[in-house]
């Protein structure tokens, strides 16, 4: 959905992830990039400004500075703020106490009102209701035909003939829904500009006389900076209760959703994710926020890791890596902590140097089962072997394999992965020295002092 922004922020925070301790300057730099990413994502620049200020206030706070993986901590702060901005929880259109529940769709030309009307009708029918559609777009050529064709395909009745006024169609539909016991009634109005006073008055008249319970602004997810103006004007002129965000199946970053939510305070109720009538989903602010950040499960892993990873041990580990004193015992300790966390491939992404590992010792990622075996193998080694793995020759390998109930191949694999990891650490250390700008970047949390 919003993968482009996800990737962008992920890159930013991967870089940040290596920075160990965050200074205000670090945060500032990251947030400058977040600002750019959000602007590229079409979030309105005023909304971006407010958002960044709030995140900054929290990110520079003590919880971030004290944490082991401050980059992820910042992501969490950004995610929390995004979720808050997008709305606390999923929004449902409350049914009216006296049916029919009337839902009115308004918006710019080409935003997707007619398609959304049909999708909504289908969704409510799936939920066991009996919806009615009103084709009140008498302006666009064949718009009524379009809704009628969609209605026929779904077996849902459509009210509205050519020659009637939009208001008359909506009135008639409301009466028909009441007498035939159909609910909800979905009003599809003509697309119009938010600055077209005469056309806005028509919507106000329908609102006055037909009294819809929910006025939905249908907004194209590809909308740019103007989304705030559009939403604000429609809200001021007609009043909107919720937003349906359409065409989210493309690669638009959908920043308009943030803007509109922010400027109107109205929730996003639905998202359109395809051209077919079944492509309508309820909006989940948390999912959208997580998706924007590309965090998904990793966010919960951050919380989990904070609970399970022993910070002192982790820092000790980092020190050993730097000093090239990383032994099999440390490897085992690392594996143990990893096992407490869950699936390996997910965890790799959140370990201090996890991003770099991803894809490298591929075996490690897709063979969680090996963890138990590796633990047994290391347990069957002598303390000397663990500290100086280079002494492990052929006969020692056979002994270790027998002792741990594994094969020599397993022992070899473990040693190979340990060697790979160590080699990689050395490379990062080399990079640290060679590339001054990448200092502190690619792997190590830099220990203070």
């Amino acid at each position, binding site marked *: 959905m919003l993968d482009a922004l996800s990737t962008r922020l992920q890159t930013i925070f991967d870089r940040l992830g290596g920075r160990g301790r965050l200074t205000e300057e670090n945060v500032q730099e990251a947030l400058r990039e977040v600002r750019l990413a959000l602007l*590229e994502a*079409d979030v309105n*620049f005023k909304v971006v400004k407010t958002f960044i200020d709030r995140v900054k206030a929290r990110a520079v706070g003590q919880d971030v500075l004290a944490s082991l993986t401050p980059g992820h901590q910042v992501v969490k702060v950004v995610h929390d703020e995004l979720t808050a*901005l997008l709305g606390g929880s999923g929004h449902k259109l409350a049914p009216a106490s006296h049916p029919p529940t009337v839902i009115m769709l308004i918006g710019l*030309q080409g935003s997707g009102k007619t398609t959304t009307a049909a999708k909504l009708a289908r969704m409510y029918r799936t939920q066991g209701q009996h919806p009615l559609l009103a084709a009140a777009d008498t302006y666009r050529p064949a718009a009524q*035909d*379009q809704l009628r064709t969609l209605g026929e395909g779904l077996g849902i009745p459509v009210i509205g003939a050519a020659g009637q006024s939009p208001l008359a169609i909506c009135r008639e539909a409301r009466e028909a829904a009441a007498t035939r016991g159909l609910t909800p009634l979905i009003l599809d109005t003509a697309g119009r*500009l*938010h600055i077209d006073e005469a056309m806005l008055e028509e919507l106000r008249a329908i609102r006055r006389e037909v009294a819809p319970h929910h006025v939905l602004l249908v907004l194209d997810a590809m909308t740019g900076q103007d989304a705030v103006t559009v939403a604000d004007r429609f809200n001021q002129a007609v009043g909107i209760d919720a937003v349906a965000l359409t065409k989210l199946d493309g690669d638009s970053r959908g920043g308009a959703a943030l803007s509109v939510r922010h400027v109107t305070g109205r929730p996003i109720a639905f998202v359109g994710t395809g051209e077919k009538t079944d492509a309508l989903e309820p909006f989940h602010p948390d999912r959208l926020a997580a998706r924007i950040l590309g965090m998904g499960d990793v966010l919960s892993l951050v919380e989990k890791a904070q609970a399970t990873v022993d910070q002192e041990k982790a820092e000790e580990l980092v020190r050993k890596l730097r000093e090239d004193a990383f032994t099999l015992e440390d490897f085992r300790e690392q594996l143990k902590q990893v096992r407490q966390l869950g699936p390996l491939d997910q965890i790799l992404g959140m370990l201090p140097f996890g991003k770099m590992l991803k894809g490298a010792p591929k075996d490690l990622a897709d063979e969680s089962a090996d963890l138990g075996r590796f633990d047994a193998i290391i347990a069957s080694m002598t303390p000397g072997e663990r500290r100086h793995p280079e002494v492990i020759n052929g006969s020692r390998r056979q002994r270790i394999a027998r002792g741990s109930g594994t094969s020599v191949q397993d022992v070899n694999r473990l040693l190979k992965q340990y060697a790979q990891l160590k080699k990689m650490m050395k490379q990062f250390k080399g990079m640290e020295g060679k590339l001054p700008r990448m200092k502190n970047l690619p792997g190590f949390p830099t220990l203070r002092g």
Partner: protein
Amino acid sequence: MTFLAGLGARLREGLRRSQEYLASGLGAVLDPERPIDEALYTELEELLIAADLGATLAGDFTNRAREEAMFGTLTRANQLRPLFRRFLLDTLAGAAQPLHLDHRPAVVLMLGVNGSGKTTTAAKLAAALKGSGKHVLLAAADTFRAAAIEQLQRWGERVGVEVIHQAAGSDPAAVVFDAVKAAAARGADALIVDTAGRLHTKTNLMDELAKLKRVIERQMPGAPHESLMVLDAPTGQNGFAQARMFHEAIGLTGVALTKLDGTAKGGIVVRIVRELKIPIKLIGVGEGVEDLQLFEPEAFVDALVPGE
């Protein structure tokens, strides 16, 4: 929620101001007495971002202003407007190109994402050509969307242009094949093909579009003479991705920028012109048939960076 409510009100107020500020032009901001400082650059950058030029382009332009200030060629704030106008006009130089409709029949392919205004633009273009004495045909190659064919037919009746069509759900390639044949047989001057809206990320639909183009090419070497991507002005940065991917898939000859009668300025086309070198051939400034116009950089820039 209380945060949102309070903030929303403040932001609304701020936006109202920003609109007035945009509407009244840069006059107030670019007070000759105002010092040239970072705050000024920031405001100018935001002005460009607000017009959907994108953060990168806005940053570039602002940096160029900084350079001019450094070289001493920019000393007063009111010099910034002509400066920005020049940047924009330089970028858009060559973006205004005429439609190539000399071939008989000239085939024009209209394409773009859903809801950008392809059908309306196709009809308006047909009306304009007919008005200049040309024999025009329309082809209803959007056989997917409900009542898309009817929509073009109504337009055809309204502007007095014949619409070549088949039943809903038929193969758009077959419609196009028929239409090109009909246009040649009847000695038409132009054939305008209205295709189904498609998101540029849908590979199968992009393949379908490429196939339509191949069918036209095979029947009439050198055709289509114009492949116009219809883009609506409210579109943000995604418009660039659209142009890039449609261009890669079939090679665009131009952009038709629609819905410029709203408050959106369509600034994304500046980036499309700059990075993809695709000209802007048409703009739509209203719902009327006469509201389709040729692109004029001067007028467009005046709207982006409002005049004196």
